[in-house]
């Protein structure tokens, strides 16, 4: 289906049957999407059913559902409903133009920045946000980067005008786990092996020191909070304060780690320190140590899937197959695109993972309910179930397929218009001069 047909269909299909809106504002209300194939993810597929949305929630799902009188009815005949997809690793909203430093808010000064909160710096009006959500990705983790503890990542919904409106409730403190350099000096290395080893040891020592101090700080502050009588108030240390919920497990620790040896070391490290709530992110070589990860019971945020193998000696499709191999080993897997402006590639990353061993069902789960469970927001997100947030989309097919169009989109119950700058430019320039009566000739430059 070409875009014009799609738009015509979207207009005719989705014009509300009552109280027609002339503008294209996202609105909450009562909506019923009828006669659609519903991919609930939590409870299988409903071949011909209805989803009713009221306010920010799904209030009914099923084959025989009473449609409230006030509902705007969207005829979903021949169409599909999916839960909004979740990308478990992006820098969306933190960066606008890659090479323009002033538009990048991913990296703060210093190495130890767990108190730097991504939610603060997400620009709700970043041009890439609408470009992303029209692909069916409704929710992403936005991550700071750089240094040993780059900051606190935030799960955000891709509609809203303030941090409060966008937050999806989950945060995660990132640790960039130091990568041990191999014994040889690789061809690209500017430093000898000794210097690289030294830097690695320093980083590991620093990381351990940070968490030793955090434990101590937590003890001192907790004791003071329990009973301040006769105690001097502890000095405020913001980076230590930010680690307290990690130690308690209230906030997860997101350990970024990729090489097989480093993954093994990271498993030992988090076990030794008894962090109650840990996820690994990246995990490019997870397949090499999948059993170890499964045994440790650590969930992984895998990706990008569309990537080269990590070693020249590896099979060409290892990165495609990684997520499937981990899943097969029994590891809880969610997918991440690692993107900023191109988070819309998440469904294609999932499609490649599905093709190279993971299967469609597991891949869909890894971009919906899987990450919602990993981040403890599955009461609200990740599937089409009564009581959950209305984060879902309507499509004319499988959202991983490139030929599929997303026709309607709900985030927090808002019926968000299918619009973005990329679509606007398309509509303006496809037949650019059709409004012009006299063509203008190209003149030679020396005119």
């Amino acid at each position, binding site marked *: 289906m070409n875009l014009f047909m799609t738009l015509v269909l979207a207009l005719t299909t989705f014009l509300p049957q009552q109280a027609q809106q002339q503008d294209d504002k996202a609105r909450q209300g009562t909506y019923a999407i009828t006669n659609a194939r519903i991919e609930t993810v939590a409870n299988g597929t409903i071949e011909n059913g209805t989803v009713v949305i009221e306010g920010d929630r799904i209030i009914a799902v099923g084959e025989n559902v009473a449609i409230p009188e006030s509902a705007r009815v969207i005829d979903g005949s021949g169409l599909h409903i999916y839960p909004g997809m979740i990308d478990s690793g992006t820098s969306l909203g933190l960066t606008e133009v*890659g090479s323009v430093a002033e538009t990048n808010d991913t990296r703060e000064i210093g190495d130890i920045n767990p108190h730097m909160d991504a939610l603060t710096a997400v620009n709700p009006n970043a041009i890439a946000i609408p470009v992303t959500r029209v692909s069916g990705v409704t929710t992403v983790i936005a991550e700071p980067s750089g240094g040993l503890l780059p900051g606190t990542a935030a799960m955000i919904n891709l509609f809203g005008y303030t941090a409060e409106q966008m937050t999806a409730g989950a945060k995660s403190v990132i640790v960039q786990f130091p990568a041990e350099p191999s014994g040889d000096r690789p061809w690209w290395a500017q430093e000898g092996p000794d210097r690289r080893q030294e830097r690695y040891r320093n980083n590991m020592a620093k990381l351990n020191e940070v968490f030793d101090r955090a434990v101590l700080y937590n003890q001192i502050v907790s004791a003071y909070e329990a009973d301040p009588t006769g105690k001097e108030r502890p000095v405020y240390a913001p980076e230590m304060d930010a680690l307290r919920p990690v130690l308690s497990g209230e906030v997860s620790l997101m350990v970024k780690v990729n090489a097989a040896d480093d993954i093994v070391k990271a498993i030992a490290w988090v076990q030794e320190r008894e962090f109650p709530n840990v996820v690994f992110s990246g995990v490019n070589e997870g397949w090499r140590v999948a059993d170890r990860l499964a045994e440790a019971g650590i969930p992984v945020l895998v990706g990008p899937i569309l990537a080269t193998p*990590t070693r020249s000696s590896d099979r060409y499709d290892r990165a495609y197959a990684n997520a499937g191999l981990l899943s097969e080993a029994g590891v809880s897997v969610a997918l991440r695109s690692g993107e900023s402006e191109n988070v819309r590639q998440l469904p294609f990353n999932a499609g490649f993972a599905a093709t*190279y061993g993971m299967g469609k069902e597991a891949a869909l789960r890894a971009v919906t309910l899987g990450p919602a469970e990993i981040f403890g927001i599955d009461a609200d997100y990740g599937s089409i179930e009564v009581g959950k947030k209305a984060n879902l989309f309507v499509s004319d097919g499988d959202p991983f397929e490139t*030929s599929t169009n997303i026709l309607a989109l709900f985030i927090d119950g808002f019926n968000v218009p299918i619009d973005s700058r990329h679509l606007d430019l398309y509509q303006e320039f496809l037949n650019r001069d059709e409004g012009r009566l006299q063509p203008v000739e190209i003149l030679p430059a020396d005119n």
Partner: protein
Amino acid sequence: MNNTIRLFLIALLTVGFLTSDAHAQDVLVRNATVLTVTNGTLQNTDILIRDGIIAQIGSGLRAPRGAEDVDATGKFVMPGIIDAHAHIALSSVNEGTSPVTAEVSMEDVTNPYSLGIYRASAGGVTVSHIMHGSANVIGGQNETIKHRWGATDPDDIRFDGAPRTIKFALGENPTRVHGRRASGGSGAIVPATRMGVEQVLRSAFENGKRYMEAWDAYNAEASTNPRAVPPVWNERLEVMADILRGEILIHCHSYRADEIVMLTRVLGDYGVDRITFQHANEAFKVAPELAEFGAHASVFSDWWSYKFEVYYSTSYNAAILMRNGVVTSINSDSAELNRHLYHEAAKSQRYGGLTDDEALSMITINPAIQLGIQDRVGSIEIGKDGDIAIFEGHPLSIYTIPVLTYVDGVKVFDRENDADDMRVDVDPSAEVGQYEGQVTGRDHMHSHEEVADLMSFFQSVADVDLPHAHTLND
């Protein structure tokens, strides 16, 4: 493992690989769905490749003695994919020392050992246009190669008979490298602006034209006057003269609409008409002008916003260009993206609703036209080279898997039977299977710099600190 044994095993593997099919260029592919690109889709069809050339297309074809027999029942066959913009198989990319370096050539730095060739073949790619970088307004000459994996002589992977091409570059990259060097301080030279870029081009063309005229005058005079004095030989101007003579096709790195139209004006003034705008993220804004000029475009599927000049982009670029009659291809510019160009092309169905044939043409016959090799490759037709890619599932589906790739009737990729480690050169002192980190399309768009800076990129893989650089390689 002992190094000697390891080397021996590697040598054994290599020899085994090289001798298995290297001279058997007869293949019968039976009972496939054939996506010819130029002549529709043929069901239950056989293709016979003889001596590396497509000899017959039909049903019930019989294999000559010794031909490889491929049962492709339920599979899809398409022409070998052509990547009009790659930097694989090169030992250096950017001669970033002067705004004009027409004299250098990728011919001199072609590296047949590059694993990128095999990995691209594993995505059905059989031809790559390996290009000079974008540091200079007029960069070096490019090379068109065939993915004859296993060859060790650079000459053995060249696409014989492919026209010469040259890299131009407009916009941020040449202005940053030359005009904004040391923040516009010491060593900075023209161009620092898009005005300067135009004047660099005009000077180069004018000097090339005068040089050509001086030689023409000398050659005319020399036939009657043995004492005629030839002009001073200048390799750079020789190349400019060859461009003016129409012997070298221009492939120009460009992004903004205004600079694209500027170059068509300059070329128009000098009577040069064969130009492909590479990347050309804003080409959609001047699609009617490009169609009118007869200029081509080779674009990304959806990459944008990695630098300011691609901020006002749209993933519908390719579709708008195609619908306005511009010969358009989708390229990779990346050793990751070139492994799934079929997927990059397929995105034009979401972004603009192109038909299957239109989408496939952008990675086959259209890039062939842009490289001047459309009589040899780019479609499945009798008489064309035996470059084919076989897929499990339709190549435009996200669930497709490339399974076999042939170049000149020689199998270069076989998903079922290839070893994991397909390197043909291994440094005996290197640790086997060393972790290098994975590379994505994004890495290329956002993080690479020219070769000198490539070092710091790889350094970053191992370290905590990531540099914030961006691409000149594109």
